[in-house]
């Protein structure tokens, strides 16, 4: 080799190669820095622990499958409730429009209507059945995102099939095509619906991976960060996992993430005249004088007012009015400054019919009005 040429080329070559290496390393470092942006916890990229992981240590999880929260989203094929729809029909309005449900040989459930040339499949059933069960059909839009069709007919425990809440016979009468079958939800609305009825909703560029969905509201949905808790064998309680240190408002708002929050409504919606507010207990309760005037104790053993005062989400809600009235009397009974001065009250009175009555917002649906207040008998004026 020509030594002069070798020495003449060696140093620049080394420097050039070093330069390229430095730049490449820097570029790789920058590229590696890329992280995923956060998204809804219900659609997190990694699957959260399933309820079986919780059962090992927590007895309360053992019977959770039978709780309404766990049954808010079910596939028709595996659900015993499919028979509530299959073979049934419902005439809407003046009877000119009939909705028929039928089952195919493969066990799939379908819904048809005279105004739409083809039947649509029922892919999921939303609702535990305590109030209602609404069938939905799913598809992907032109952008490849999942959307829902909320069918016009739902099932109610006492009446059977009836119009879905929020849809009216008049509107359906004027609708054309697919809109006669139900209400089309946009992609965002669809994810919001499904997100509140499931524990994990995995997405691929907006398309829901339905075969991997964790249906129903189970442990991780409310006790966020459960993965860390499981990894540390119960030693870690990440933020959002425990409810013990939440203020009453924070506690109600956690429920309100699905059951609606007062801070996501306008002032016009937060009035006693708004019948629909009855549906959203967590938005209504924070309007109650009981809630607004409560003194938050330092000692958590004392009673305070939030959703958990009367409801244990790990068990079905009680139907016994005495149970609830006893909860009221915890603050308003006995020789306390909050003692009730209600002239109609006796020691065993049922507080609910006057202060938290059921309000019918739909021919097939009544909800307890959680805006606790002093109401006149005609329920139209508050003092």
């Amino acid at each position, binding site marked *: 080799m020509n030594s002069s040429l070798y020495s*003449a*080329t060696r*140093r*620049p070559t080394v*420097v*050039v190669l*070093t*330069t390229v290496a*430095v*730049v490449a390393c*820097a*570029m790789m470092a*920058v*590229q590696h*820095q*890329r*992280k*995923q*942006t*956060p*998204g*809804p*916890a*219900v659609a*997190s*990229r990694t699957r959260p622990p399933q309820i079986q992981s919780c059962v090992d240590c927590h007895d309360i999880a053992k019977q959770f499958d039978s709780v309404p929260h766990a049954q808010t989203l079910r596939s028709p094929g595996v659900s015993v409730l499919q028979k509530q729809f299959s073979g049934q029909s419902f005439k809407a309005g003046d009877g000119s429009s009939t909705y028929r449900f039928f089952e*195919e040989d493969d066990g*799939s459930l*379908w819904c048809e209507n005279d*105004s739409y*040339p*083809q*039947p649509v*499949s029922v892919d999921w059933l939303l609702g535990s059945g305590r109030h209602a069960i609404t069938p939905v*059909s799913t*598809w992907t839009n*032109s*952008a490849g995102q999942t959307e829902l069709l909320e069918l016009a007919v739902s099932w109610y425990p006492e009446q059977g099939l009836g119009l879905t809440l929020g849809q009216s016979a008049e509107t359906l009468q004027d609708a*054309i*095509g*697919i*809109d006669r079958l139900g209400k089309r939800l*946009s*992609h*965002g*609305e669809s*994810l*919001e619906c499904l*997100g509140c009825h499931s524990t994990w909703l995995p997405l691929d560029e907006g398309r829901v991976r339905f075969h991997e969905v964790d249906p129903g509201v189970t442990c991780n949905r409310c006790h*966020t960060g459960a993965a860390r808790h499981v990894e540390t064998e119960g030693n870690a309680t*990440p*933020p*959002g996992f425990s409810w013990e240190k939440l203020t009453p408002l924070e506690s109600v*708002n956690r429920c*309100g*993430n699905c059951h*609606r*929050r007062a*801070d*996501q409504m306008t002032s016009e919606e937060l009035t006693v005249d708004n019948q629909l507010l009855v549906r959203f207990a967590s938005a209504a309760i924070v309007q109650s004088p009981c809630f607004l005037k409560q003194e938050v104790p330092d000692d958590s053993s004392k009673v305070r007012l939030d959703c958990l005062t009367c409801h244990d989400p790990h068990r079905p809600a009680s139907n016994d009015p005495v149970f609830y009235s006893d909860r009221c009397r915890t603050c308003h009974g006995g020789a306390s400054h909050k003692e009730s001065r209600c002239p109609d009250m006796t020691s065993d009175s049922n507080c609910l019919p006057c202060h938290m009555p059921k309000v019918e917002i739909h021919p097939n649906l009544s909800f307890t009005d959680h805006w606790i207040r002093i109401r006149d008998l005609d329920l139209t004026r508050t003092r």
Partner: protein
Amino acid sequence: MLIAGPSRQIPAFGCLMIGAAALLGLQPVFAESLWWHVARGREALTFNLLPSASLLNADVAAEADWLSGVPTALAFDLGGLHGLMLLQLLIAVSIAVMLIRAVDDEHTGLKAWLILPALLLLCNRSLPVPASLTLLAIPLVWNIARDQQREPTSARLVQLFVVCVIAANLAPGVLWFLAAVAIAGIVRGKSPTAQFSLHGYCQCLGVAAAAGCLTPRGVLAYRDAFVLAFPQVNVPRAYLTGTHFDVLASSDDRFAIALFVVLAVFVAIHHFRRRACFETWACFSVLQFCAWSCAGNLLPVTVLLVLLGTADRTSVSKLSIGLPRFQPFAFMLTTGLLTGTCVLGVADLDRRLGWGVAPLLDYRPLQRDLTGLEVDGTVLANDVLGAGVVALLELPNLTAHDTPERALLGDRWISSWRLWDDISHQRRNPYDRDDGTTGGWWSSLQNDDIKILLIDSRQHSILRTLETTSWRMLSLDSPVIPYGFSGEPAMAKPILECWDARWMVNYGPWQYDFPGAAVVWGRTDIAGTVGCESLTDECRRLAGVFEALELYHASSKVLTAALSDQPSATVQNQLQKSMQRLARSEQTLASRASRWDTWLAVNPGDEKAAASRSLMLKLGFLSKRVLGTSQLHFEPLAPSDNWQTARSYYFDGRLDLAMKALDSNNFATVFARAQLQIVLGQTDAATDTLKSLNDSEIDPVLSVLVAHELKSVQRN
């Protein structure tokens, strides 16, 4: 000229470069931050030291380059759109002169290889906004710092100080000036004619650093410049994706990347041949890292690279590496071709030889929509274009919320990103994110008193998303579309008017008037007037908005009007995609698309295949779910010569001839005629045609489609 002796080469070469730069600058102004800087400049001219903070609700901080908007503001206020163009030309020519003077190498070949890519890169981007002032200031600072004496004299230091103070207040990126001083000093030190003095070097650096602090922002000016140059230090890269703060490799501007790579390779070869010292290579590496780590650094790094490429005067023996000899003719040809491509462009690109301002920057529709609106509050724009227009209009009751750059500097980038992510994904109500924060746009917009949203009309996904929210459109034709909240009483009237306008453009008699080569609000398309294909950017933008709003007939009206003026493959492609979306929406509505729209949606030659279920499935015109039932009635498309002819006329924009070609009376053809009548604006005729179909015994699918169109045409 170039084959004459060396003494004649430089002037001739310089004239060629200046001419090329002038041509490159002779393009309509398209910088989206134009109005923002005009507004800032106007504030600065009133001696307001905090121009950005005065114009934005979310911003309270001072800024170093508070005067950087002044030249643009003066140009616009004194000369209007012509003033802006003259300023742009002046800057482009100045950049060329700067490059020529910087490359004072005796070899014209080197000049060519360095200047040409740099010129194409610098003169074609983001003029005449403040970034160009930085490009002009860097060589000034560099030349002063490259003092050939051992120790810089007091005069030199004062000169350096004054220039740096002016540059720091007038141009963004004070860090680049410091970098210019630092690199010039290092490289100068290796020159055989200069002697390096550490004391002198530190003096220069200190003077430059101190000068950079003499701004309303003070020493924090360096912090701001660092954040803008290396945003990933503050913000994870995932939040910067799709912006010009992301890495260069992710940029859509492939031409710019290619030019930069070419320039870097030339500079590297030059260093290699000259056996450049280690310090030169180190500076080269650092500059490469700066450029590739953030696309926003590309332009200042380009200037520094050119300066670096010619700064090392080490005159040791060059390596005997064979490089192509410079051929004057070849160079002229290359220059001419590249410049010609840039200035003449193609009709489907927005930028080419012209005068004025790009239609995208037309602020008059927004001025029309927002002036007189009886609402007080904040306007939230998703980019600097919208925020800039609001700042420019100086509305008494509405203030812009923020701009991307000010958000980055004020540590508001991530919260802003999250808010727009929630809006674009329609996440209104509070929800938990997987990082422990709480999302939902409702609370954020309430807290910031946001009354108007401004969405860039090219952001189709957000336009589609907002269709199903309580935010309603206030305008159809503005490049930046305002949205008002439907619960706001003051918005009721403009919302309803816009709603009426939607019917008018889609089902009403409205027709689009394709401007061709005519002046479109201050933009004169010079290439179009001399016979090149007319620009179609504005009509494609408008058609895209209509399509996002599912106003497919309106989209067809716009695109076929353009096609009737001149054929264009890009416009035809967009028209076909619009027809595909229309066919999909029909499939959703009626379980199957109409034959005519399916015919328009498939590619030519696919007509026979269009009869197949597989293609219908692939195109999304049939649902797999529907196929699962036993009640399916599928009538395959039958190829028809008349339909083929009609489709050809349709894609040529000759709708009258298409109508004549559809002369059959079968129901599918009659429905096709009704569709054409709507696109032609013949509302009454379309109504009659649809009524006749409605009264006939047609198949269930067509029955749904007819009922839907009739209801829409009659506005029931």
